[in-house]
């Protein structure tokens, strides 16, 4: 998971000749099992700011 965190999302972001779309990366990042409930998860993933736990743990 740590590797996914870094190699998939970060590093020098320059378009090579082959382009991976953001949606493709999200698919990988979440893993296929999460894809099924993914819209809400993706929204949460996209913007939790640094403020500690802001949601009641489910």
């Amino acid at each position: 998971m740590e590797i996914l965190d870094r190699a998939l999302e970060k590093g020098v972001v320059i378009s090579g000749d082959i382009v991976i779309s953001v949606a493709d990366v999200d698919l990988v990042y979440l893993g296929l099992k999460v894809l099924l409930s993914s819209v809400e998860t993706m929204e949460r993933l996209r913007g939790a700011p640094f403020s500690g736990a802001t949601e009641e743990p489910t």
Partner: protein
Amino acid sequence: MKELLYLYCVTKDKPSSCNFEDLGIKIHPVYFRGTYALASSVSPDDFSEDNLEKHLADMGWVEKHIRLHEKVIEEIMRGQAVLPFKFGTVFENETNVEKLLKTNNLEFKAVLARLEGKEEWGLKIYCDSEYFKDVICKEDERIKEKDKEIVSANKGKAYFLKKKMQEFIKEIVNEKISEYTKDCFERLKITAVDTRINKILPKEVTEKKEDMVLNAAFLINNKRIKEFENVLGYLKTKYADKGPIFDCTGPWPSYNFCGSSKEKTNKR
């Protein structure tokens, strides 16, 4: 079909060895004015645009290739600072790689100079919310007071007070978590040259039962690594049995710190 070039990273010098036999990879360095792009030949069966898109849906394929990507970069990193590329940066030919180096020549040199002699370390902090709630309920004076109120109240009022108590506990948990994570982050930041706060990952991704409450990266001068470790040790002791769980990893290739100076970071 013609082979493609898969890019791992950019460096200032050519690596001492370009042959990674145990990984089955041969590095093909592409030079331009003081920078090397380190790539290897890959098959379009794997990395053509269509095939890559298909493969990205296959976690087994992804895991294998990301690990390879990471291992190659880490090998090169033993010898010098690297500017790691995001996974899946693929070019059709050497000329295009050279163009990349030319366009970004000054930027790459500047970032490499900044990364020389530094290491990236990551820190994730998790909190077991239930455990946390228990600790707080036992220790927080305000909650103990409210508990007393509930015990002495009549049934109707007690119900109402209990509901308010739940809200209050939630607030305190958030307050404490914020306080603890801020304390940890600020103390470690002192030992770092640069820091980055990343998004919190949900349980579906971490597969842990605790919530992630901090996801941070630190760029640390080699000479201050010991200091960083000492502060971390201090924090682990300070917060032992209070709830926070520390997950510190590194050194990593500087994935979090290879952006341009235009990017927002928490620079000192």
